[in-house]
């Protein structure tokens, strides 16, 4: 049987990919002929030509005074400014950077997940230049034209730090992957610093939002409303349609979507900086606590104490005791043991659950090692055990390891009490 016929007979066994796309073969480009060039140019898009291939580049500028949600781009300049006056480390710190050093980056691809065959068809980024925010986008007009795409991109970026949303795990590795395929024909990839705001969003709003997808953060936290937005998951199908028909309508919407994402990144970085630096007047106590936890996790103890103390003042949310426990550990680290002890006492008195068990254990350690009062230590440990059993009964979940630890402590303390 001829292969053509065989393909028909065996069609049902061939793992066919989704067929609802309407892509056809595009004829090879003989001479450089750019379809719908006039329409593109009317929309501010210019071709970038390299040999007999090209890509499309769009540039748009916004004044710094333009508002977007609750901020204007001017606030970004303020945020960078504010970082200069800090005396602590933070992974998102822009200390030593100028506003023009950061570039806000996002891509659109033909599929999900990593893998060589997932093509980046749109590279977009924004940066500040003078009194303006510039958004530039590089669009791949034909699957084979990646050399002009990356060439145009790499020759126009000259910044120190990349700001993305999940770019550490996805966008940038994917850029590296596709770049590897054509690395002999294009400039090297520069080494950038990288702020990935997804991690920040998780730290700050994981508990408040149903998900920390950029669109949700944008709407719920930044107060930005989009009209007429194309959802990101449709981007591949729209792109496949574009390379078949060369019609602008759909792909232009995807470019707008990408532009919106990038501009939101700029606002999001501004907002997160304001959160971290205490510049947001609207900041909730819960957000403050999250910031405090963040500082303590990166060993900025003094900063953590300052923020946690502020946050706990007049705060009565359910995250209060967790915050106080964190604060106690920061005190303990600085050997301010009495202040730490005061926290534990409060938690033991009013708190409950896992937090309370931890506070009891800490109090027991304090009594045992610091005060050498074994009886009080034993009492605290017993309190921990009572609370442990209470949780076990309520939830029906037993944690044998923790139980054994508490029991071990009880035994040791009992022995010490007996020995006295």
């Amino acid at each position, binding site marked *: *049987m*001829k*292969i*053509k*016929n*065989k*393909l028909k*007979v*065996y069609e*049902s*066994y*061939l*793992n*066919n*990919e*989704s*067929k609802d*796309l*309407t*892509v*056809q*073969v*595009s004829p*090879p*480009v003989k001479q450089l002929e750019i379809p719908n060039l006039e329409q593109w140019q009317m929309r501010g898009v210019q071709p970038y030509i390299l040999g007999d*291939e090209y890509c499309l580049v769009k540039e748009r500028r916004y004044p710094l005074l333009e508002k977007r949600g609750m901020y204007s781009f001017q606030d970004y300049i303020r945020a960078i400014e504010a970082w200069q006056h800090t005396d602590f480390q933070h992974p998102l710190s822009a200390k030593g950077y100028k506003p023009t050093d950061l570039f806000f980056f996002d891509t659109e691809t*033909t*599929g*999900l*997940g*990593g*893998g*060589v*065959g*997932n*093509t980046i068809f749109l590279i977009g980024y924004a940066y500040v230049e003078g009194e303006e925010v510039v958004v530039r986008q590089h669009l791949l007009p*034909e*699957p*084979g*034209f990646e050399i002009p795409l990356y060439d145009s991109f790499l020759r126009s970026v000259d910044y120190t730090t990349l700001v993305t949303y999940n770019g550490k795990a996805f966008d940038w*590795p994917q850029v*590296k*992957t*596709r770049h*590897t*395929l054509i690395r002999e024909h294009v400039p090297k990839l520069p080494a950038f610093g990288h702020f990935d705001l997804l991690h920040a969003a998780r730290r700050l709003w994981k508990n408040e939002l149903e998900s920390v997808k950029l669109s949700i953060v944008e709407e719920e936290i930044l107060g930005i409303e989009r009209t007429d937005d194309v959802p990101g998951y449709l981007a*591949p*199908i729209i792109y*496949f349609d574009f*390379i*078949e028909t060369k019609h602008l309508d759909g792909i232009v919407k995807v470019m707008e979507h990408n532009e919106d994402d990038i501009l939101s990144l700029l606002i999001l970085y501004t907002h997160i900086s304001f959160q971290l630096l205490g510049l947001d007047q609207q900041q909730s106590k819960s957000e403050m606590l999250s910031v405090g936890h963040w500082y303590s996790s990166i060993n900025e103890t003094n900063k953590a104490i300052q923020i946690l103390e502020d946050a706990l003042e007049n705060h009565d949310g359910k995250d209060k005791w967790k915050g106080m426990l964190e604060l106690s550990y920061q005190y303990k680290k600085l050997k301010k043991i009495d202040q730490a002890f005061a926290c534990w006492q409060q938690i033991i008195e009013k708190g409950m659950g896992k937090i309370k068990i931890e506070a009891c254990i800490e109090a027991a350690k304090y009594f045992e090692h610091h005060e050498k009062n074994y009886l009080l230590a034993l009492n605290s440990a017993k309190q921990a055990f009572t609370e442990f059993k209470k949780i076990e009964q309520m939830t029906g979940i037993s944690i044998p390891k923790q139980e054994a630890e508490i029991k071990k402590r009880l035994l040791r303390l009992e022995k010490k009490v007996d020995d006295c």
Partner: protein
Amino acid sequence: MLRKQSLTEIINWLKNTNDINLNIKHWETIPSKQASTVPIPERLHPNLKQALINRGITSLYSHQKTAFEFGIASQDFTAVTPTASGKTLCYNLPVLQSIIENPDARALYMFPTKALSNDQKSELNELIEEAEVNINSYTYDGDTPANIRQKIRKAGHIVITNPDMLHSGILPHHTKWVSLFENLKYVIIDELHIYRGVFGSHTANVLRRLKRICQFYGSDPVFICTSATIANPQQLAETLTGNKMRLIDKNGAPSGKKHFVFYNPPIVNKSLNVRKSASLEVRRLAGEFLKNKIQTIVFARSRVRVEIILTYLQELVKGKIGPKAIRGYRGGYLPTERREIEKGLREGEIYGVVSTNALELGVDIGQLQVCIMTGYPGTIASAWQQAGRAGRRHGEALIMYVASSSPLDQYVISHPEYFFKQSPEVARINPDNLIILVDHVKCAAYELPFEKGETFGGIDMEDILEYLIDQKVLVFSGKKYHWMNDSFPAHNISLRSASQENVVIIDQSDIANVKVIGEMDTFSALTLLHDEAIYLHQGTQFQVEKLDWEEKKAFVREVQVDYYTDANLAVQLKVLEVDKERNTRQATIQYGDVAVQAMATIFKKIKFETHENIGSGPIHLPEQILHTTATWISLQQEFAEIGEERLEDGLMGVTHAMKNIVPMFVMSDPSDVHVVPQVKSSHNNKPTIFLYDRYPGGVGLSDEIYEKIEQILTESKNIINNCHCEYGCPSCIGTDVTTKTGKKDALLLLDYFIHASKHTEMKA
């Protein structure tokens, strides 16, 4: 019996016990063999040499030295290495030497299973440590933790993996492996003989993709293969890798004395020619060994058989040795369970294991003393692999072949020379099977765009690439075919079976603790996991309460019954196209594409021990359609004189005999080739016998049958002719034949078929 007997005493017991030695049809003693050794080569790095000496190796076997020389000279080669012949040094020495000489060099080791990878990594790392050289070797598979993956990609000199991981975890991400692919010097393929049939055909395409990526990064690795004894190791390696191969088949390793005993159970029903059940005989023999704590491995042909024998043995030696000391081992057990059994065998805590061919592979279970094969394993290569499990390098070993009543088994037991003298089977693969090929062309296009005019494995790709454009997965642009789809093709393609979807087996005996105990491919599930089927797992019986076909889940509950179940499959066939044809006045032999419709119809309940039918029930499962390749032979003759009924029985008898003989001529499992008779074929209205590949598109088995049909027919005739029964029995023409003339008619038809094929031979 007061004290434990030694193996020598047990051997004497076999010889001197009357009701046993009467059943022994052949006793072959293979003498021990001296080693052929040569000094360690001068070229070998002193550290490596010292490492060998530290491990007690002061000289090499002759084949190891040849392998070292070929490997160092960048010569692709295939070494035939029986069990325990020191095969790992055949590739480890040239690879380590090369990396010491050039620390940038990289090697990729491929083992068919994860278990083998782990064994090899430990062995390799011991050697590296002993040699005190700075070489990193890692396994990279589904179990590799995410945090060390990046390090392996960048700095692993030797990456140990399996074809599945290469297919879906490495090649589609080749840009993360630049330092490996730029410097890939060696690709090692161990257990070459496993890569046959569907799995081999898939793997050949994975290697085509690997080579394509290597070419992109400018490397051209040397392929080194090691194989068990098969008829065509060199050809298989060349088809699999696409490279010319040198062959090393002179083995220098020593081996201990081996007793090969052919045991035929006594006839219990003369008129029906029914023999005592092989499983029951194995129970008695293995029981005797196990009671004396002689480590024994029992091989059985099917999963069901494994479980039945396991149940027998656990019952028999209960109280003498703990129940945990005898275990089952087969596909469908979870990996952790398997690892535990392997370890138990190595460390001697487990005395007995009952296994399917899953333990033929080089999984390290140490040296056992006795191997029992319940029935012929289907191929000579497989039989030698199984036999190799007993007495690996030194010391005496006993291998017993216990025949069942099946014609193939009876044929082998009465022709020991077939086993000891004949060359083993040919391993077949068909990398150009269209379905498999197209799957991998997609993966390859995902990995790197195809250029216009580019070939893949030497095949012109234009038709396939055009087809994929029609399917909206590729776009042609700028002289290249680009992947333009949002899917990840490797995830939809499994190397191991026709469909990736397996039926999961869920034990709900304990409602509070419902758990998954295994899985099975969908085609097997039709006959093994239908509603009310008895499914055996580790000797425990489960009844299938519900098979949810849509969701591919079988819900089972533990039961204790005295029967097992056996299901019937009804089959219809339609010829789609004829590709090859040989014609005579008597018959037509054709080869081509067919559509097979299969439906599970009823199941029978068969009582243990007596094997009587004690009930049956219907099976309600959707029909499965299979498109594949087939060879069929049709008679021109009308046969009006014997009538349709006798014709049907005659054909059925011929079919039964052929079904059993085919696996001897094409290296395959009996279930890989199906044989179906039609009194009036829907194709040409003639009496016809079809032989078809079980895998969609075929993997070359029916092609081989087309070439060898004469021999297959002649041997089928011999089976029936040499059978002592009068009117036909399960050993020759099977039990579905009801007329007394069945045997005679089968022989008559075979004469026509043979005559027909001989005629064509002359014509051809």
